[in-house]
């Protein structure tokens, strides 16, 4: 049975490749232009469903915070919708709800923005887009709303601070990124959030929510002409920048390995291992993407899951990933396990990584990985939401417009040797941070790099 399937699969994978190449062109004609406001716009028309996804993103994530005012970026974005252009927060919420529109959006170290999902008929769409443009153009950051949100945020931070998963992530990012703003907590800390003033938010907004750095992604049931008008309406009233992007500093690599163990009464130890990984524009991106699929990205079929879960029953979830960002983002291996098994789990993770770094994947593993990623390509673009997410990604990081068309080809090019050498360039087992939260007592071990 298995043999028969393999033969069948190879054939289908090849067929999928062919059909994808054609289909990608057919279904994803991405249009890009610059709005008169200076904003970059990406658009795909799709009339299948009477709905529209629109987002506006800025390089205004938590990496643009300062150490003293950490949390300003998140609070600025959070307050955009809580009072704008003469409309109070409840009025804004009611008006969106009245037309069935949903306002969300992303916030991460690099990006901050708003995402609107609305029905596409002109009346409801018009109301929703008009509201969004007022929020983006004239946020008021009301002082009394800020005070309330600070209290809520501080409560949430204190609650989170007790949790082992929060503690392990905080320490990990501090130790991996040290002085770099990627070390900052995205929502700020109790002390820094407490310090935020209305003036801080206004200044952050004026500096970072500027038209010529805005990326507008539009996906759904409108024409090109309508999309142009929407993009301009959303960005025309934004602050004008000085044309100078705010560059993020470079991430320094680690000079040694450090292991930090922290006491916590939880039933499980939470483990993170990692180091600075790659930037979004790294030429090794696809090679590492495929290589990591084999190591710890492929769910049930990855080496880490095999060693940790399938063979030993040590964890429910164990994984690895690269998070490529504007500056160098982290490479992370993580899992949780009953606390008396933490040492065993750590040895298994480390041994699995070392083995992979030394020998690389097998040809069979690479073949299986390609089959999955290439054969699974249609599922990456099978909904408006997923395509819209790609538009935002391509626009924000300046990826080629043909990113999706070329995706399959780029995956197919990856070789065993390529993976081994790319991992050697980017992951050094002698310069890694390890954090374990959930132990009887605290401990720190530093081990200078062997080389």
């Amino acid at each position, binding site marked *: 049975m298995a043999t028969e399937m393999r033969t069948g699969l190879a054939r289908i994978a090849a067929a999928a490749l062919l059909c994808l190449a054609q289909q990608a062109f057919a279904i994803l004609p991405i249009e890009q232009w610059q709005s008169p406001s200076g904003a970059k716009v990406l658009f795909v028309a799709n009339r299948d*469903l009477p709905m529209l996804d629109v987002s506006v993103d800025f390089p205004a994530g938590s990496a643009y915070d300062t150490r003293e005012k950490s949390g300003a970026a998140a609070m600025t974005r959070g307050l955009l919708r809580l009072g704008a252009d003469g409309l109070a927060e*409840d009025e804004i919420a*009611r008006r969106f709800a009245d037309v069935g529109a949903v306002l969300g959006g992303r916030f991460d170290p690099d990006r901050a923005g708003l995402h609107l999902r609305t029905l596409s*008929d002109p009346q409801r769409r018009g109301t929703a887009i008009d509201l969004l443009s007022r929020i983006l153009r004239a946020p008021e950051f009301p002082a009394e709303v800020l005070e309330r949100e600070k209290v809520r945020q501080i409560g949430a931070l204190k609650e989170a601070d007790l949790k082992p998963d929060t503690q392990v992530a905080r320490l990990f990012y501090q130790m991996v990124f040290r002085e770099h703003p990627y070390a900052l907590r995205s929502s700020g800390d109790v002390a820094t959030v407490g310090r935020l003033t209305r003036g801080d938010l206004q200044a952050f907004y004026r500096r970072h929510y500027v038209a010529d750095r805005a990326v507008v992604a539009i996906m759904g049931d409108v024409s090109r002409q309508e999309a142009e008008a929407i993009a301009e309406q959303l960005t025309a009233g934004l602050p004008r920048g000085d044309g100078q992007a705010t560059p993020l500093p470079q991430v320094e690599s680690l000079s040694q390995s450090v292991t930090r163990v922290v006491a916590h009464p939880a039933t499980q130890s939470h483990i993170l291992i990692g180091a600075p990984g790659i930037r979004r524009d790294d030429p090794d991106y696809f090679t590492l993407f495929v290589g990591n699929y084999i190591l710890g990205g492929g769910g049930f*079929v990855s080496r880490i899951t095999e060693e940790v879960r399938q063979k030993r029953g040590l964890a429910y979830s164990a994984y690895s990933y690269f998070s490529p960002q504007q500056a160098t983002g982290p490479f992370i291996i993580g899992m949780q396990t009953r606390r008396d098994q933490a040492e065993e789990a750590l040895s298994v993770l480390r041994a699995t990584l070392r083995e992979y770094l030394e020998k690389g994947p097998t040809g069979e593993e690479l073949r299986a990985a390609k089959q999955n990623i290439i054969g699974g390509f249609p599922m990456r673009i099978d909904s408006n939401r997923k395509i819209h997410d790609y538009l935002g990604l391509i626009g924000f990081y300046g990826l080629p417009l043909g990113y999706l068309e070329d995706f399959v080809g780029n995956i197919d090019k990856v070789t065993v040797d390529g993976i081994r050498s790319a991992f050697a360039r980017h992951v050094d087992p002698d310069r890694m941070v390890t954090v374990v939260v959930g132990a009887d007592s605290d401990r720190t071990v530093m081990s200078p790099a062997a080389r």
Partner: protein
Amino acid sequence: MNPAIRFLQAALTVCLLLAGHAAAAAPQAVAEHELANGLRIIVKPDRRAPVAVTMVWYRVGSVDEQNGTTGVAHVLEHMMFKGTKAVPPGEFSKLIAAAGGRDNAFTSRDYTGYFQTLHKSELPLSFRLEADRMANLVLSPGEFAKEIKVVMEERRWRTDDRPQSVLYERLMAAALAAHPYRNPVIGWMSDLENLTVEDTRTFYEQWYAPNNAIVVVVGDVVPAEVFALAERHFGGIARKALPPRKPQDEPPQLGIRHLTVKVPAELPQVLMAYRVPKLRNPDEDWEPYALDMLESILSGNDAARLPQTLVKTGRMAVSAGASYDGIGRGPGFFFLSGTPVGGRSVGEVEQGLRREIRRIVDEGVTADELGRAKAQAIASQVYQRDSMFFQARMIGWLETVGLPHRLPDLFVEKLQNVTSEQVQAVARKYLVDDQLTVAYLDPQPLEGGARKPAPPAGARHGD
């Protein structure tokens, strides 16, 4: 929003999405077929992408477990990936992955479901593997011994170290005396520790049968071809006599119940559960539709009553919300939840929640509020069609709890007709103390001398 409410809103989201009417382009017709062995196949064509989502739903969940073996439905779900005579352990997921697919499974109180998302040309693979493990699962003691450890890790991760999960688990155990909804889906730890591979085998042999399953396919497929494929792969599996399902009806609640959960946490919380009816007869019932509207008016948007009065103007709560689980085989609940801001007590928040209910009982709701809730429901119905996975999940869920998959259309109609008086009437009839269980999360300091970690040595190099 706190995790307990988020957890509860999993049910809420589904209820909201049910509502609404088909705007603009009509969705493609759903086709249905039943094999001679009782297996039902439901197909919903969606030609937007060359993809097919396959789900096999078994009408068995934690509600069908016995005392002493709670969690067995979910453990069996894990074991379903551990091989048959034809497909060795681990091979199932490898074959799906090599075909470009993604697979997993989920267990709930009422059902257990397995899914694959694949290129449409791979549907035969999915059917072949699912049919194989429906009939030929090998339950080996060695694989069980490893997997039960994984499930215990899952329980620690999902529940034991999460205060809000513990609060919900203990609330349900207190709110119900007889009905098995009182047990957590993942099972009590002691039961997991004492579970045997034989327990999973018994459960598998009793409940995994074509006449206790529904296959749902959503994607770029032709129904007649899917039916033929199902006949080829599942047609040879024999039907089974299923065990009788005892109703295990919950006796009437005879007064308010309180409980306190003391766990390490920072913020207190109050979680209130009122016994309310579930949707049983979609044509005749009206109360569940009114309860659905009540939920939306209380917390369906940022300006809804609970966030508006408790969080924004009242400033007593970090978060506040409502949630109605109106669809399922067992008893229904209407939940209210709130977390006080520093300096305010759970008592104040509880009073705030009760005050909002009393306002509705006394004054009803406004036409604007009803209109808003209906508009949100209509839009959600359209948005839901963007996800094939979600559509498949909705069909399987409704059918396994005994409701028609066409319910969403009816739901719309019914929802549009709900009046302010009806919302007022269900609040008055059901949100009363004698039907209420209240759980308080009482935060405890971390034990064992643990504290918030000091800044790491490694972070100090450049200071």
